[in-house]
Structure formats: structure tokens, C-alpha cells
């Protein structure tokens, strides 16, 4: 039966593959730019081939190292918090007695997920400004004003925190739904064994959430390298390049503001490799930890 109709599956995939070929595969040939001294009028084919010059260039640049470091650190911190906070919060929410409060909280906390960084940048800057709310609060508590947004000590923390603030609600809802789906018999059995509230969470709820946690982890691994640009771009300034400059913002500055197409493409290529490693790792991990094949 399946053999007979296999052609229909092919037909369905035709438009999908066509779009991917045109808009994803065709531009891949542009990667060649990273290996040549690209001159626009000569085009990709006729520009002078320079081999690994731009990669050597990148390695010798003083800021390259910290761009990689920032990219990876920010990515990893976001991933870890992106799991821990929503899991914790969903369990908390599940323990809420009042259904009304539960539903209201649930509705409110994932609104920020749907707002873009362009929109959020302004209020975030207001809140963390020198005369902003957070500083007013600090002063009221007897502290001193701090320049959060131009301080290398705080900026990365703010990136991670605001990102978590934006995304935790979304994660929470997903985990909460998973918790709701747990077989109530398991809890009853635990209760008969005399388990306390906390013990039920540790021995019943958490193990049952393993699969979904792994899936969400995979999702964030795949996304995290791309998700940074909008946020960083809208919040950073030269004062915090040291801790906030990531591959994407660098590529943007070098490629579009300084017109060094080859250097910028070389950097993108490196990023693709990091991204690939992360996605493959995540697929492997989810197979290993949760016996769940994502692809």
C-alpha cells in the first residue's frame, strides 16, 4: 500500500524542497565569499581567491576570542536558566490552590514571549536607567545608583535576566501542561506510602517531566545562537562590547556598516559550525537521556 502511494509523499515535499533549495541552499554558495577578496562587480565567481586569509585574520583580531566567549557564555547561561526557572515555576504554579489565581497568573506570564525586542528595548532601558525604577528602588533601600546598562559587571546579567523574564512564562506553560498530564494514580500511590508534598514533587513530578525537559532543551539548543541578535543589538553600546558583543552583532557591524563582506561571511560560517555542533549534540542527548528522537 505504502509503496503504491509513495509518489504522493514525494509530490507533497516538492514545494517544500523547492523553497529550501532557492532560499537556503542557493545562498550557501555565497560561503565562497569567505575565501576570496570579494569585489561586488566581479561577483562570486571571478573575485580573487585568498584561501584562509580572513580566517587567519579573525584569529589574529584581539576581539575575536571574546566574541566567541561571549556568544558561548550567553548561550549556555540562557539554556540553563531556560530550563531551571520554568520547571521550578511550573511546579510552584501546580501547587497553587486557587484555580482563579492559577489561570490568571498563567495567562499573564507568557504575554512577554510574544513581544519583540524592538518593542521591549525602550521599557527595559527605562527600568535600568540611571534615573530609572531599579535605581530609585536601590536608593530608597539605601544603596547607590548604578549605571547598569553601561557596566560590564551587570550587562550580561541583564541580558540573561531580561531574556528569562521574556521566555520563562512560555516554558512554564509547557511544563505545567505536562504536569497536568501525569497519571493521578502515581500521586495517590505516593500518598499511601506517606510521601510529603516535597517528596511527591521529587519522586513523582520531576521524573515524569523528563521527556518534555529534554525536548525543550533540544529546542533551546537549536535556537539559542540565533535568538541573541535582536536582544543584544537593541540594548548594547560600545561600553559593554567586552561582555555583550556576540558573533551576530559583530557580523552585522563588519558586514553592513564597514562593508567587509568576506570577513563577515567567514564569521557567519564559524557560527554555522558552532550551531551544527549544538544541534547534533542535542539530538544525541535527547536520544540518550529520554530515548526520544527529535528528527
Amino acid at each position, binding site marked *: 500500500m505504502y509503496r503504491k502511494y509513495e509518489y504522493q509523499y514525494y509530490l507533497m515535499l516538492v514545494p517544500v524542497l523547492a523553497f529550501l533549495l532557492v532560499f537556503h541552499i542557493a545562498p550557501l554558495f555565497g560561503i565562497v565569499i569567505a575565501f576570496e577578496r570579494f569585489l561586488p562587480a566581479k561577483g562570486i565567481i571571478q573575485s580573487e581567491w585568498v584561501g584562509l586569509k580572513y580566517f587567519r585574520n579573525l584569529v589574529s583580531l584581539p576581539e575575536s576570542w571574546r566574541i566567541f566567549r561571549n556568544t558561548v557564555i550567553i548561550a549556555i547561561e540562557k539554556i540553563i536558566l531556560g530550563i531551571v526557572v520554568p520547571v521550578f515555576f511550573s511546579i510552584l504554579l501546580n*501547587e497553587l490552590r486557587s484555580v482563579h489565581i492559577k489561570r490568571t497568573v498563567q495567562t499573564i506570564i507568557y504575554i512577554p514571549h510574544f513581544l519583540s525586542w524592538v518593542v521591549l528595548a525602550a521599557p527595559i532601558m527605562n527600568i535600568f536607567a540611571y534615573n530609572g525604577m531599579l535605581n530609585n528602588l536601590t536608593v530608597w533601600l539605601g544603596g547607590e545608583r548604578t549605571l547598569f546598562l553601561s557596566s560590564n559587571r551587570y550587562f550580561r546579567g541583564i541580558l540573561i535576566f531580561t531574556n528569562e523574564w521574556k521566555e520563562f512564562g512560555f516554558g512554564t506553560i509547557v511544563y505545567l*501542561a505536562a504536569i497536568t498530564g501525569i497519571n493521578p494514580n502515581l500521586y495517590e500511590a505516593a500518598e499511601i506510602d506517606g510521601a510529603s508534598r516535597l517528596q511527591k514533587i521529587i519522586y513523582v513530578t520531576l521524573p515524569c517531566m523528563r521527556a518534555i525537559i529534554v525536548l525543550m532543551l533540544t529546542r533551546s539548543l537549536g535556537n539559542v545562537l540565533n535568538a541573541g541578535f535582536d536582544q543584544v543589538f537593541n540594548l548594547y553600546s560600545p561600553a559593554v562590547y567586552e561582555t555583550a558583543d556576540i558573533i551576530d552583532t559583530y557580523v552585522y557591524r563588519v558586514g553592513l556598516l564597514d562593508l567587509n563582506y568576506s570577513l563577515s*561571511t567567514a564569521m557567519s560560517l564559524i557560527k554555522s559550525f558552532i550551531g551544527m555542533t549544538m544541534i547534533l549534540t542535542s539530538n544525541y542527548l535527547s536520544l540518550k537521556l529520554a530515548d526520544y528522537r527529535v528528527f
Partner: protein
Amino acid sequence: MRRKIGAADVIITAVCIISAALCLLPMLNTFAISLSSSVQAASGRVTFFPRSFTLSAYEYLLGESQFYTAFLISVERVVLGTSINVLMMILAAFPLSHSKKNFRPRNGFMWFLVFTMMFGGGLIPTYMVVSSVGLIDKIWSLILPGAVPVWNCILLMNFFRSLPVELEEASFIDGAMPVQVLYKVYLPLSLPALSTVTLFSIVGHWNEFFSGMIYLNSQDKYPLATYINALVNQAKNIMNITDPQELQKTLERSDTTLNSAKIFVSLIPILIIYPFMQKYFVTGLVMGSVKE
């Protein structure tokens, strides 16, 4: 069996309510600024309540035709873009949800999809392609390059995989073809998952600003997100107005207040759509991922 409300419950409730409140702060702040006078806004004293209350930003907004235009373009983009996205996701997810036994090259296609997700040619080569297929300055340039959202395809595929294989086999015995199986069996059963990916697609199109900035040639073709980005990131020339009355008005609603008003209005459609989708959305996300 009702338990007594203990200290733990009080703490949990408090933590939840405070967190929820924190989520609303930035929006409240934006709203308050949009209703304040510019001097108050510039001095950074506006927190959650408007200071020197004025509606002038909204008055001005109502009279600005470019805002309407951008709004309508965004709506058009969301409708066109989401339709194509959802169609592509279904077309990709359904064949790929079959096992290797039932659709032999399944793994090859799957890895192809994953490959496109990992490797991109970067901004400039992509621009060259979009330009050479003649999409520059057309609304399609915001839609076609991202027509296949691979990650959402995978999400939907996993949902399809969670449906029992017997459904399809039974349909085959009744003489149905795969297209009919998809249409009559899979899709009706997948409403939660479909509305999830639809919501993702809507929100993605509504918020995405970068491609508009790059592919469009004139400001009156900008969708709302690109328009707002241009407002926020480019210092606008408010200083060359010479008519004193106009000037007074401009000062009253300096950029900060006007932009806040625009931002706030741009949030409204998302806030309206979202409760409708919310019901399905969660089930959709989870059902595809949790196996018994």
C-alpha cells in the same frame, strides 16, 4: 479531602502573583509614558502612572497615515505569510512523520531539512538570491524566504508521529489515498498542534522587522515592526519645525511619548489573538512531545 492552607501555600501564592506582576511592568511603563507629557517622559520620572496626563501622542497617531499603512501591511503579511507557512509545514510534516519502512527516503529528506536549519549562507548571499528572483521591494520578500519554518515542521511532524499508525492503515484499506488520509484524518485530529504552529507563525511575522529593513525600498511599504524599529533606532528630525504652534505640540509629545504610543498600539493585535489560540496552544505543544 481538603487540606488546610498552610504557610507554604501563602508563600507560593505570593511568589506567583509577584512574578505575574513583574511581567506586566514594562507594558505598564510604556503605557504610562505614552500618556505623559514629553518633559516628564524625558526626565525619566514616569513609572506606572502617567505624569502631566495628555492624549496628544494618541491624537497625533490617529492623524498619521503612515502608521495605518504600516499596520495594514503587517496584517497582509501575517495573513499571506501564515497561510504559506502552515501549508508548507503540513506538506513537510506529513510525509516525514512516516517511518523509514513506509516512506523509504524519509531520513534523507529529514537530514536535508535539518541541514538547512544549521547552515545559512548569511545575509549578503541571501540578499543576492532574493534580488535575483525579483522579490526586492515586494511584500513577498518578507514571506517567501522564510516560507518553510523548519523547526515548526519538526514540531508538527512529532505531533503526527504521536497519532496511531493504525489510523492510516485502516484508511488505506477503505481505499483512501495519502492525500485523503491527511485531509480527512490527520488534520482534524491535529487542530491543537496546528493552532500552535499557526500562532508561532503569526507572532513571528508580526514581530519580524529585519527583512523589511533590508528588502524594501521605501518607507511606505514597511510593515509595522520595521516602521517601529526605524522610529526607535533613528534619531528623527523633530527639530526643523518652525510653526510655533506645531512646535509646541511636537515638544509636548517628544519622540519617547509618541513611540510609546505606537509600541502600545502595535501590541494590541497580538493581545487580541492570543486568548483565542491559548486553549489549543498548550495541548499542541505538549502532545507532540510527551510519550506515554
